[in-house]
């Protein structure tokens, strides 16, 4: 493990020790965060899969019906039938917080207009197959919104998990060992210096003693 390029001083050592303590604490916290996010993520993904399969199945059926309704009417008549919708849907998108990740929350509300017919077309010139497919499609809408919310949540969560995991790994395998190594290097270097200066001092002392012995002789 590479040693950081630092001056082997006592001040640097204290600084590094402090950083190491922070890194270790951060590592533990991030690891906890990652584990918890994974737990939630797995739950959400499972739900997502179920919902998606369900919506896809129903959507395929509804679109199939719609296709056949389209086959027995000309394009223009079909478009005329649905060109002026009577139903309005209000969508509110807000934020929700999962483990400090902002995920979207979609609120869905249908503005009902009691007096208006739910079907915006006349029944004489349109096919009966249209009613069915429009009813199915309108049933699916809330679930499609739910699915959109869930899928985005999973995506954001997955991104965040990836980021967190990279941080955890960086701390665990690079930052912390590197700092430990550097600390050991500084300590050793300082010990070495200390020993060197002690030897020097002893040598100097010896020399002084030698000199004073000669002068007294």
């Amino acid at each position, binding site marked *: 493990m590479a040693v950081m390029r630092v001056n082997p001083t006592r001040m640097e050592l204290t600084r590094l020790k402090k950083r190491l303590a922070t890194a270790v604490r951060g590592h533990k916290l991030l690891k906890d965060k990652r584990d918890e996010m994974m737990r939630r993520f797995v739950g959400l993904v499972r739900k997502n899969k179920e919902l998606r399969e369900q919506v896809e199945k129903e959507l395929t059926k509804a679109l199939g019906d719609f296709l056949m309704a389209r*086959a027995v009417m000309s394009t223009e008549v079909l478009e005329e039938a649905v060109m002026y919708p009577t139903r309005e849907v209000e969508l509110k998108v807000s934020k929700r917080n999962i483990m400090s990740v902002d995920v979207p929350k979609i609120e869905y509300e249908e503005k009902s207009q009691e007096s208006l017919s739910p079907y915006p077309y006349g029944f004489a010139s349109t096919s009966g197959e249209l009613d069915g497919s429009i009813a199915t499609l309108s049933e699916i809408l809330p679930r499609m919104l739910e699915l959109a919310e869930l899928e985005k949540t999973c995506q954001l969560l997955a991104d965040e998990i990836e980021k967190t995991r990279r941080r955890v790994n960086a701390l665990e395998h690079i930052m912390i060992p590197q700092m430990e190594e550097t600390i050991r290097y500084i300590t050793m270097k300082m010990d070495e210096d200390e020993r060197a200066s002690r030897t020097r001092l002893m040598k100097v002392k010896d020399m002084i003693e030698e000199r004073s012995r000669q002068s007294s002789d």
Partner: protein
Amino acid sequence: MPKPSIAYAAAHIFALENRLLSRDRVERMVEAPSASEALKVLSETDYAAGVSELAQPHDYEELLSGEIQRIYDFFQTISPDPEITNLFFVKYDFHNLKVLLKAAYQGREEDEFLIDSGGTLSLDHLKEAVKEEDYTQFPHYIREALEEVHEAMSFRVDPQKISVILDRAMYKHIFHVCRKKKNDFLLEYFKLQADLINIRTFLRVKKINQTFEFLKHLLLPGSELGQDFFFDSMEESVEDIVDRLASKKYSRVVEKGVETYLKTGSLSTYERLMDDFLLSYVKAARWNPLGIEPVIGYLLAKENEIRIIRIIMVGKINNIPSQIIRERLRDVYV
């Protein structure tokens, strides 16, 4: 210019009938492996010119609207009584009116869904008139309908009501012309059509659990089955309507249609039987060489043919199994 007499028209049309799409051509189209293969079958028929102009099979609607326009032009020259044959073309006018009005009430311009072939009134006139809200130059039946729409919409805009008022006005006009011309054959035809459509409307309303009040204004006028009939039927179960209509000419349509509807929840069989029944009604009368029947028959046969082609093309483009296409396929005229 040929003189449009009934005998001439009938003779001319007998000659043309042979060129209608025959059953085995339709069968070959259904069995074709792809949309372009199905089109190839069409290019062996009268549609050849139209087919060769198509860039790709997805544009088949162009082919069909071109054909509608061609039929319309043809009938303008050959029809012994344009007022009567035009009854089959007014639906395009009413369609365009619906589109224009709905667009106008939404405050936008709409060009895409207008049908510019087959209408008896010029599209530019219609556009201009809806824009200016000046309907004085139109025939009275359209003027009255439009005034009714404006009155109904003055309080609140209900798009269904626009369609409903115009549908009713159209049938009122059709019956008015039939009575004026004393044409019992057509009067009966439209009565049967209105009956069958009303029964279908009834089934649809019943399915979405609406009340009689809702059904009442969706019913077409001129039907033999009055409001009372449907009011009583609303209370009963769907099966009972079969018994109540057992004495009608179309009892088989209702019986079979309702049976599959109850089984599968789909009205497609009913609609197919309805079209088949109406066509067979006209078919039965087509050998009268001195009446307008063969002319009408040819007109309906053409409409039917267009419907068949559309069903097949939509099916082929979207890779629907031949079986499902065949379920919806109407009978052919010849």
